[in-house]
Each structure stands twice: as C-alpha cells, then as structure tokens.
C-alpha cells in the first residue's frame, strides 16, 4: 500500500504563495452572519510567531460557489492574524451527538515540521457544554485554549500558544 508523503516545514518564504484576500471568506458575496476572527500566535518564550501561515476551514455553513469555507492568513510581526468569515452553525458528531459551532485551524511556520491543528469555539455558546471534543479535555484551563472571546460586535479573538504556559490544545486525528 502506498504511504502518505512526509510533511516538511513551510519555511520562512511561503509568502511567495500568499494572497491576502484569501483571509476574507466573504469576498464572493456569501450571505449570513459575518464574523471577524483575530488571533495571536506566540512561541514557548512568549515571542510572537511573525512568519506563520494560518489556514481556517469550516464545514458549516457548507462550502459553495460564494463561500469557500477555507481561507489563509499570514501572521504579522506581532504574531497576529485576521479572518473574515460567516458564523458557523452546529454540526453533527458521532452517533447522535451535536458539535458546537467551531472552525478548524492549521498552523504552519518555520520551525513547524508537521502542521499543527487546533479548533476555535465561541465563548458563551450553550452547545460548548456538551461538545464531544471539548468534553475530552478534563482541565478547564486547557479547554479554554480552544475558546475565542468576544472582541467587539461580531468580532472574536483567540490566543494561541505553541509551547509552555497556556499551551494550546493541538489535535491528532
């Protein structure tokens, strides 16, 4: 059986394929409740990750001609990134379970050999209490690393820590 090709780092020069407009998933005119998601990525020393690529994928609302469901953003010198998208709804999980609204993030950067994957949920959503993935994380402080906080009207913010104090929960599947 063929074996999946190995990952290698995206490196510091991936901006040759950067298209900043891809960070706006609403650019084709999707209707729905718009949402801005900002984030900041820091390393084990608390230093900003200024050369990263962040990719957002959401299965809800379903991708269409006017909504790609996917976007990519670069981090700036402060480690910050910003997406504009449509607010996701709940999704089916295993069995009869329902997943709380969330987006998935892939992180790539110099010094990251294999992509890091995490999810972003939205604070205050009642479905967070019963979300099957969040329920796998026993420590409340660890669970909180996946939950974005309101940062103004229709704006949300997530802090991502690659290593050390407050380290983000990364996912394997």
């Amino acid at each position, binding site marked *: *059986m*063929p*074996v*999946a*090709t*190995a*990952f*290698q*780092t*995206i*490196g*510091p*020069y991936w*901006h*040759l*394929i950067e298209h900043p407009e891809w960070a706006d998933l609403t650019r084709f005119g999707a209707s729905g409740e718009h949402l801005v998601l900002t984030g900041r990525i820091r*390393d*084990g*020393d608390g*230093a900003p*990750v200024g*050369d990263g690529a962040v990719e957002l*994928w*959401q*299965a809800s609302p379903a*991708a269409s001609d006017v909504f*790609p*469901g*996917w976007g990519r953003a670069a981090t700036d010198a402060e480690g910050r990134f910003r997406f504009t998208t449509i607010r996701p709804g709940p*999704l*089916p*999980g*295993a069995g009869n379970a329902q*997943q709380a609204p*969330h987006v*998935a993030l*892939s992180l*790539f*950067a*110099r*010094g*990251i*050999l*294999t*992509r*890091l994957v995490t999810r972003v949920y939205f604070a205050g959503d009642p479905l967070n209490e019963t979300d*099957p*993935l969040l329920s*796998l*994380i026993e420590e409340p402080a*660890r669970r909180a690393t996946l939950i974005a906080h309101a940062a103004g009207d229709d704006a949300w913010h997530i802090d991502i820590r*690659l*290593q*050390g104090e407050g*380290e983000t*929960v*990364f*996912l*394997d*599947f």
Partner: protein
Amino acid sequence: MSDSFESAATFPPFAPGTQPDNDWAAYGSTHRRHPQQPALRIPQTVTETTGPRFTSAQLPAIIDLATEGGREAMGERIIVRGRVTDEAGAPVPHAMIEIWQANAAGRYNHARDQHDAPLDPNFKGEGRVFSDAEGWYQFTTVKPGAYPWRNHFNAWRPNHIHFSLFGAGFASRLITQMYFPGDPLLALDPIFRSVPDEAARQRLVAQFDIEITKPEWALGYRFDFVLRGRARTFFEE
C-alpha cells in the same frame, strides 16, 4: 440511511515513523515552536473528513515558472511531472498544488531573504497546478539553487521545491518539499533528516526521468505525491 455527513469515510492514521516529529532538536527553529503536551486524539468528524475545493476557474493555473512576461528566467530549465494518489493507490483528481521556490542562484523573491545572491527579474517563484482526472500534474521551472541558512555553522539547504496540496478532506492537507537526486547536502540537512523512516525520507527525492526530459529543451524529473486517503471504505448497515 444516514445523512451525508456521517457517511463520509474516515482517514486512516499515518504509518508510524513516516512523518517528522515537531520536537526535532537538530532544527533550531523547532526549539520554542513545538508543543510539549501530547496532541489530543479526536474522532474524525465532518470537519476533518471534508475539505475545500479549488478549481482553475477560480484560481488560474501557473504552469510555467521559467518565464515572466515572456522573458526567460536564468538557470537550468526543468520539467517536474508526477501523479497524486491516495493511500489506496487511487488517483486524486483536480487536487490543487501550490509551488514555490528559490531562483537558480538560491535566492527567494522575498524581502526577508538577504542571501548575497542575485535576484532574477524574470523569476518570481510561484506556481499553481491542478492534477487531471487521472491524478497527473506537470509544470516547468528552473532548478532552484542551494542556499545558506543559520541553523548551524556552514549550514546549506539542499536544492528543493516547496509544495502545498489539498486532497479530499481537511485530513489530507500536505505541505512538503521535493529534493533532487544525488545532492550531497541531503545527508547534512536537518529538515530532510527529520523524517525518521528511511524509505519515507527517500520518497521526498525526485527521480531523473528521460521520458519526461524534452529533447533540446529541459531535463525531466518525476515526483509523486501520496495524500492521506480513504484506504478503507465503511459501509452502512
């Protein structure tokens, strides 16, 4: 009959040893960027088993990196051709493949690249191709040069081309690098050597192919991708 979300097959795990560990001391930039907590193992849901779709209608293909505005880049012109399949050996059609690389002198067209080697006004270094119905892709470029980096004393990256692929689902996303056969720098490169399994590592090295080589025009290299894929099919009861 279940709904379409639940009927999406899950992706089998990566074969042990075939993927780099992010905790890899030989590559200095990993030291403060690798998580120390084990990743949380999660069941795959629609978020992991589905993924974005891209078409050349939305995103035009860039199949010739070796010319810019009709003017030819400096360097050794090459053709790279190969096939994208999944772990069952089935072709992955219409996969978007993004490409980026240094120019023939080993310099990226990037503000942060300060290597003392010339930029080439006729080489940007970005490509984008889509696999065809049988999984085949091809593009033309120039062979990228080796360049120094500061990982350790006298560190040089081997000649390489960067690739980004989108397969059938979020789980099949791949970012990797293609290397060239016979490069003496491979044995010294901590990024190449980060893949533990010898066979998996060697699969990152393209093969010279006389059939792809075009007479009086360009050398040809074969490089295949295997995306994490639907090796198993789950059937409804």
